[in-house]
């Protein structure tokens, strides 16, 4: 943690959370805490997120060995958040890790080296949001057709419409039987 950490000026206290331990585990990584409704949320920049996740997994007092969920949220102009929900089966605590990707560079390192559970979840997130997970061992589509790699349904700019409309709009949907 660097000295210009904005956490000191934030009024809410994180004493009742595991933030102090997380802060210690993430030494050298610029992480900012946020109080979630249930769990502590930690924001980490995309270029450091893999190091951060590895540190959270390896740290003895934290031991986040279970990846509950991995997904993304499209915030339109503010970029896309990749969200990791972590859990420790030994210590029974949760943390949410968030990293914000800018719209010009939708790439982040894969977490499959930390948890094998990330494999399919990243494949799904990649095809739905157009995020590229660097060094992913199996970068195929999961739920979408194999050839549909140019349209991203869960982005906010993707219309919710019937297939005939989407074919007309040139969204990359091919005509039936082609």
């Amino acid at each position, binding site marked *: 943690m660097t000295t210009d950490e904005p956490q000191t000026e934030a009024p809410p206290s994180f004493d009742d959370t595991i933030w102090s331990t997380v802060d210690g585990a993430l030494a050298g990584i610029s992480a900012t805490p946020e109080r*979630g*409704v*249930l*769990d502590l949320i930690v924001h980490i920049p995309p270029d450091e997120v893999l190091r951060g996740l590895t540190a959270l997994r390896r740290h003895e007092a934290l031991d986040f*060995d*279970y*990846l*509950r*969920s991995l*997904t993304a*949220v*499209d915030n339109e102009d503010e970029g896309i958040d990749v*969200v990791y*929900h972590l859990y420790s*089966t030994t210590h*029974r605590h949760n943390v*949410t890790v968030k990293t914000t990707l800018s719209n010009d560079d939708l790439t982040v390192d894969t977490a499959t080296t930390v*948890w*094998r*559970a990330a*494999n*399919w*979840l990243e494949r*799904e997130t990649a095809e739905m949001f157009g995020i590229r997970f660097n060094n992913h061992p199996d970068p195929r*589509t*999961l*739920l*979408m*057709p194999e050839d549909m790699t140019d349209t991203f*349904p*869960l982005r906010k700019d*993707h219309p*919710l419409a019937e297939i005939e409309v989407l074919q007309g709009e040139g969204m990359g949907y091919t005509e039936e039987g082609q």
Partner: protein
Amino acid sequence: MVTPRALEHEFETQDLMINMGPQHPSTHGVFRMVLTIDGEVVRDVVPYVGYMHRGAEKLCETMDYRQGIGYMDRTEYLANFNAELSYVMAVEKLLDIDVPERAQWIRMILCELNRISSHFMFTGAFGTDVGVFGTAFTYSFIQREIVQDLFEEITGDRLMYAYFRPGGLAWEVTDNFVARVHEVLADMRQGVIDIDGLLTHNEIFVARTKGVGYISGQDAIDYGMSGPALRASGVDLDIRKAEPYLYYDQIDFDVPLGEHGDVYDRFVLRVEEIRQSIRIVEQCIERLQPGPIQPERMPRMLRTPPGEVYIRTEAPRGEYGIYLVSKGGNRPYRLKIRSACLSNLQALKHMTVGQYVADAVIVLGSIDIVLCEVDR
């Protein structure tokens, strides 16, 4: 005399690729896997999912909070109440409203009964996978039908209940609810005994399933498995105990754990869970008191403040999570459904490689997948 080693040199064996599914009776839906086999032994498995992808998450973004309840039924059609529960709890958490006690107890009763019916569905379908088609299947389905009848009486629908609401329940249960639940429980107790006799202690069944499809607890955690499939490997992780929701902390029940992490353990564990669920329902029924089932003042249109929450509950197949992001307004900004089966399926390759090709089907069956939930 020809030694086996000499044989190996003499015959060049070639790997054979077999396509199984998506239309195959033992894949429990539209699931496809490509098996690479060497003789009788599976060398590689490539699963393909997504044939049922309907974009439930995207659809939920376009409709208000009450309309989304119906979509939860359609993702997890064997444990609808458990799926609805995660969703309404997420909305309640963001709205910060308290649910009346009676509504919570009824929710618990229905969720546990749903777990029982889902596990009976499993015992029947799994028996078919193993090859004891007929008796075990019909006996299980009779039990499931009995529970389904009760649900139909309460909600008016056989499968798509849409009965839970943010804040409580849609309407009051029937007048004879308590008596009917006792009736159903009596049938369930007999049902477990039947299944034990037909399958659990059946010598052929045991020989067929013991030691097949092993996965260690460490690997299961790493793959993100949850529910009975994880606990069969000896990992003590049940969200009802680890992070109690509803009133599970006031109820006395055990979490059965497996020792061997094989197909047989996954089966026996579910049968044992039926027994525990019966225990839970018995205790809930005793504590059920008359009272309101909705908070006094509920707005006509639910508007959540900005925020996000990840709610997880223990559904029959594992952790059913709802990640709800709100930016204000009457509909979710983003709704992510954490599917237990998707994560469990990831471990399929780990469990199947090295097994006989005939066992690939029962390993898949032992995960108890619902493809609608995987694809959403």
